[in-house]
């Protein structure tokens, strides 16, 4: 059977070096050299995932763009991926084009960018790092898959500084935000806690503000470990959304020894991340995220009598939400996803502050490549 033709424009170059320069000249790369995408290489990527060039993986209506398998394959080749990563990248593309993830928030001044967590057997088969130096750089799978998603949106959705990207500080997760979970502990891995079978490979995407906050958690009880996290998250941005909490296997063992599941960890943080109205006012956070705060009769940025005793929950819906949370965040999901990783000698936990104003976390299963007929 005749192969379906590729739609992409083909450009003649003298050699690999001229190709590399061409992608710089045309603004098609992120500052690093690319692997020149030839038709033969792109077809190997499509075959690895069982896709025809024109198969639609997702749409970005805000940019009037359709992400076809061919475009993902081209950008994945450029990023330095191997063909066998394609099924994982397909799931990642489906996740970020899910309407719940809502692409257009990524143009925000806050520089949100998706962090991808791979769970399941393919994560290990493909060599994704879940251990030491989790956010790398470490392995080819982590580094090139992160870059593939970055280049895909750079080239196909104008997500670049001379396009629609309007973030203030940028986001290092564009280069390193593609990781796997260490599934060697007795805890259920993330995808199982979200209702997927353990033998399924999944990609979970959370829109993350730039940066990883690490915390020195040196105590040896579940409460002692988590009180450090409660304090840090409560005094951080106080944005509602789905947080990623990274726990080392060493810390996970402490929780497991005390009979704590990931759900216990999540619930402990959920109910305890709180702050007084007075604190929030002194910090200058009161009313900043709410739209039109002056419209509320009882709005005041000055500490008032009783504000020390008024306690605001970060996660639990409460009477102060209209002063503290963006209206969109109140319609979105919030959670705390506990992910094990970072190697077995870690006494530090880490977390990522999410962008929850108009984006939900999304998990997609990785489909096995279709069998060629």
């Amino acid at each position: 059977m005749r192969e379906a033709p590729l739609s992409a424009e083909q450009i003649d170059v003298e050699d690999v070096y001229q190709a590399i320069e061409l992608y710089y000249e045309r603004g098609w790369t992120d500052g690093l050299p690319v692997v020149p995408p030839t038709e033969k290489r792109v077809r190997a990527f499509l075959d690895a995932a069982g896709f025809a060039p024109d198969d639609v993986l997702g749409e970005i209506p805000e940019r009037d763009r359709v992400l076809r398998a061919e475009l993902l394959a081209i950008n994945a080749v450029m990023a330095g991926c191997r063909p066998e990563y394609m099924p994982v990248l397909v799931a990642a593309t489906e996740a970020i084009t899910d309407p719940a993830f809502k692409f257009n928030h990524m143009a925000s001044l806050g520089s949100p960018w998706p962090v991808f967590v791979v769970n399941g057997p393919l994560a290990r088969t493909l060599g994704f790092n879940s251990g030491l130096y989790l956010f790398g750089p470490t392995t080819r799978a982590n580094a090139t898959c992160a870059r593939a998603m970055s280049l895909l949106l750079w080239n196909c959705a104008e997500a670049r500084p001379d396009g629609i990207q309007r973030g203030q500080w940028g986001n290092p997760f564009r280069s390193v935000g593609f990781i796997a979970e260490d599934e060697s502990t007795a805890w259920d891995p993330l995808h199982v806690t979200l209702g997927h079978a353990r033998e399924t490979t999944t990609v979970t995407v959370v829109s993350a503000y730039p940066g990883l906050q690490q915390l020195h958690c040196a105590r040896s009880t579940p409460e002692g470990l988590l009180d450090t996290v409660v304090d840090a998250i409560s005094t951080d941005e106080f944005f509602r959304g789905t947080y990623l909490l990274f726990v080392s296997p060493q810390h996970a063992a402490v929780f497991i020894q005390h009979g704590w599941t990931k759900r216990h960890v999540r619930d402990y943080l959920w109910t305890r991340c709180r702050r007084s109205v007075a604190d929030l006012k002194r910090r200058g956070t009161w009313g900043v995220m709410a739209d039109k705060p002056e419209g509320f009769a009882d709005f005041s940025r000055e500490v008032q009598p009783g504000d020390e005793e008024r306690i605001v929950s970060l996660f639990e819906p409460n009477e102060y939400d209209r002063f503290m949370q963006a209206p969109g965040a109140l319609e979105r999901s919030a959670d705390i996803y506990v992910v094990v990783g970072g190697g077995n000698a870690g006494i530090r936990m880490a977390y990522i502050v999410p962008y929850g104003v108009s984006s939900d976390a999304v998990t997609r299963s990785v489909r096995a490549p279709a069998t060629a007929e």
Partner: protein
Amino acid sequence: MLKVLNPTARPARGTSGIAPRPVSLDDKTIGVIWNGRAYGDRILLEAVDLLKQRYRVRDVLFREKPFLGNIAPEPILAELAAKAHVVITGVGD
């Protein structure tokens, strides 16, 4: 010799572009869409005041989006498309 591939995607429907600009706003109706962010209304109304100083604006239709993360509801878009000659909008904090 090597053939390499263009990695970009063009707009699928190819309809994006800049609308024709009116020569003057005299006797024109100006639509305004505020995304709801604090103080955005002040900036937009200030812009409208400046335009009113320069032109004999017929009318101003000031509309607010319920939420900045979504496009304006269809009734607002339909009303402005039917009644306004130009529309001012923007995003940001």
